[in-house]
């Protein structure tokens, strides 16, 4: 009985200690959650107050893109390309492990020098009505095409390194359905100059674009976003949910949580149970290679969140630098496995004229360097906020394309989006589906609007 008493007492102490530990952990978790909620609420309040302080009375002035996409800028670009210095010293030039091979640089250079015609670029852009206005600190360019009376307005958001050119095939299709379409150029991209002050982060851009819609008289609208545009669209849905009729994304946003862990563990043993496509599985499995894969995938992101200007000088002064740093993502993010080995396929999918149009716009506007600052602002200003937001009610549609850079399952997407109404997979297309699978992405958007979005555009 003595031994029994000792055992019993030991067990009691053990239970008390375990209970105390559990209480401590619980208290820590709850206090952390409270801290996070407070941080989210206070930042949301600050952002809304900042946005409300912006005057919406600045007039919207018509803008002609050809005033900047002129022969002076293009001839300067061609001239520099004719005198380009491009090393090509490796025995296995095509198979270099160090980045995009020189054959890519030379292929695009030759096309710009010998084939590309800016009148094609200007004629396409002239189909649409362009404007400039000032909202907050942003001297904003945007396309606005009014559709049928009372129809759903659609806000299209590109990302990095994009321009409004990305949507030149999609806009006519949407207009054909009677929708009103608004397409802004992100700060530092396309025809919006880089901001002259710091702080223009994705959250600030979200507020800017929402205020733009209000200024145009659209109280409620649908948002479609790619790359950072998808993230900005999600932020608009988070801050102004009562204004967003629906959110359609092509790039899924990574939010780490218990779902990822469950999926990771189950997916190691029963991948078929968890992953719908080989790309979804390859994104995670094999886990042993994941660290290196992520290290390689996000090298550009790391440097752009720390010193965008440093690497940007070569992009503004040299069309070769521009082709390399801006041109290669366009092509690699459209390529199978996003691999340099498939750059030719990526170039064909994205379209060499689309690559050239994008590069000519960045060259003429001289804002490639400024474009990368939004990664810096995202990392140092918005990171924590964007780790924790969720979209509980706004209807969401996600379109998955095989050559996209991030592949998340519907299961993990529920972490961020609690009202997923549409989740589609396509057999073709990559990071820029508006260019390499226009019917796929626009078809999804129209279907989403018709079936899941009320046309109460207020």
């Amino acid at each position, binding site marked *: 009985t003595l031994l029994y008493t000792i055992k019993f007492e030991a067990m009691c102490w053990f239970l008390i200690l375990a209970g105390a530990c559990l209480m401590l952990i619980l208290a820590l978790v709850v206090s952390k959650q409270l801290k996070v909620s407070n941080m989210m609420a206070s930042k949301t309040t600050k952002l809304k107050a900042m946005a409300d302080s912006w005057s919406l009375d600045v007039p919207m002035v018509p803008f002609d893109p050809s005033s900047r996409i002129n022969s002076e800028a293009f001839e300067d670009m061609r001239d520099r390309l004719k005198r380009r210095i491009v*090393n090509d010293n490796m025995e296995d030039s095509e198979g270099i492990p160090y980045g*995009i091979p020189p054959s890519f640089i030379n292929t695009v250079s030759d096309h710009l020098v010998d084939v590309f015609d800016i009148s094609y670029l200007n004629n396409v852009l002239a189909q649409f009505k362009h404007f400039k206005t000032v909202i907050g600190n942003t001297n904003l360019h945007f396309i606005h095409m009014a559709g049928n009376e009372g129809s759903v307005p659609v806000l299209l958001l590109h990302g990095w390194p994009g321009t409004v050119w990305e949507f030149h095939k999609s806009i006519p299709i949407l207009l054909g359905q009677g929708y009103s379409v608004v397409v802004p150029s992100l700060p530092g991209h396309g025809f919006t100059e880089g901001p002259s002050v710091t702080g223009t982060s994705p959250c600030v851009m979200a507020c800017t674009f929402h205020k733009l819609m209000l200024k145009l008289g659209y109280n409620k609208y649908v948002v479609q976003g790619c790359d950072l545009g998808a993230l900005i669209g999600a932020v608009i849905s988070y801050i102004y949910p009562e204004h967003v009729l629906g959110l359609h994304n092509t790039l899924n946003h990574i939010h780490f949580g218990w779902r990822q862990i469950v999926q990771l563990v189950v997916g190691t043993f029963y991948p078929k149970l968890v992953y719908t496509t080989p790309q979804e599985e390859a994104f995670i499995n094999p886990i042993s290679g994941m660290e290196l894969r992520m290290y*390689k995938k996000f090298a550009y992101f790391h440097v752009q969140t720390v010193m965008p200007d440093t690497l940007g000088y070569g992009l503004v002064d040299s069309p070769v*630098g521009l082709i390399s740093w801006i041109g290669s993502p366009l092509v690699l993010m459209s390529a199978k496995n996003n691999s340099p080995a498939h750059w030719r396929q990526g170039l064909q999918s994205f379209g060499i004229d689309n690559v050239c149009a994008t590069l000519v716009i960045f060259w003429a506007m001289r804002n490639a360097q400024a474009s990368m600052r939004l990664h810096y602002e995202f990392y140092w200003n918005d990171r924590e906020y964007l780790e924790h937001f969720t979209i509980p009610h706004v209807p969401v549609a996600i379109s998955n394309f095989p050559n996209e850079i991030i592949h998340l399952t519907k299961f993990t997407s529920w972490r961020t989006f609690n009202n997923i109404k549409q989740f589609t997979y396509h057999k073709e297309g990559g990071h820029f589906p508006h260019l390499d699978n226009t019917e796929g992405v626009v078809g999804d958007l129209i279907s989403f609007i018709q079936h899941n979005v009320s046309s109460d555009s207020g």
Partner: protein
Amino acid sequence: MVGCPFIVGGLILLIIFLVCLAKRNKSHKLQSQINALKDKANSWEETEILAFDPASQLNESEFKEMTDRLKKRIVVPHFNEPEKSPYGTPATFVNEVADHLTESFDFSMVKDVLGRFKHFKTVVGDIHLHFIHVVGNELHASTPIILLHGWPSTIWEFHQSIPLLRHQGYTVVAPSLPGHGFSDPPTVAGVSPAVIACAYHKLMLQLGYKRFVISGGDFGSLIGNLMTFMFPESVIGLHNTLNLAQMGWRPLLQTLVGSVLPSLVYTTEQEHKSVHPLSELKDRMYKGMAYFHVQSVIPDSYGYGMVDSPVGLIGWIGFTYANASCSRDSSKTPMENLREGIRNFGIDNICANLAIFWATRCAQASMRIYYEFHANDRELLENLSIPEVPVAISNFPNEIAHITKFASAGMYGNIKQFTYHNHGGHFAHEDNVEAVVDDLVAFIYKIA
């Protein structure tokens, strides 16, 4: 219940056993990696050593091309206070260096200065090596020195040090790092720092120097460490300006004690600040490793703009010279810090290095060493130990890493000299050449 301690004890023993097993497998793997490297080096045939004139690669036309492009440069900050830009190199810096190159810099000075030395070229395996060779006097014949620079430096780094050493009668061999300046970049992948270490070792043997002293900075320190690790019998002494000894239990213990009693553990403020405050360490590492990350993954994509544009070259390579030579004081503006760096490194030294980089078009290839290091040599560095060869470390205040003598003992078993200086940075041969040469000479005197 009673069995609990046994279960826990058993688990701990199992973990220890597994760790030991992993370590043994690792050291076995490492030894076979080193053996493979040595076998490869042994298979390299001796090739001719040819005299070389750097002026043949430093054409006036190349320099004119550089200044022409600079005169037509496009630099558009899109920002209202360029001197305070948090986004990286300020436009003010780029314009100041560009103006100096186009208006004041005398390019012929580079050829004149380099022409005072005897240059040679040879091929070791897949590696094309340019080097300066100075033959000293009888007194110092037993301690020839190999000087190793790193990234993004050139042989210009030693243009003051070599005369100082020559004057004292030392024999000096100073190679250009592959892919930098006059050492053409390899035409095949795989030339990592460990392979370069073998090539440098082979070069010294070919020149008749069976035993030698190594003095290096940046990648030169890394390669010097590797040479000493793989060929300890060849190295009389190892002198580093960049300390890479950060391994084992010592840094952890030091950090713990240093959080509470910093004066017990850190000799200089820089040593203290390089770790504390711990709350800022993650952000500081994130910022500090950005360049390493991009250069170890896509150096070529990054580099196209630096070969085609002298503005791109100044923006990154030029900036690095100044940034690594200043105190990087966060209470000052970025431009104030860079002005200090320009003063320390010397505007003409910046321009000389940039002119060599431009004329040899090596900026892009120079960064490949980061890729090759990351792909091949990380484990070697993590397991490097130099138990017996005498080591000297020279500590300069504006260097990028500051490691205490206590922590260094984790890698070096025989630290003969550990000096601190009040002036100088990452490129000590440019901004405190007397101190670094004095340290080297004093070290040789101790170990000869």
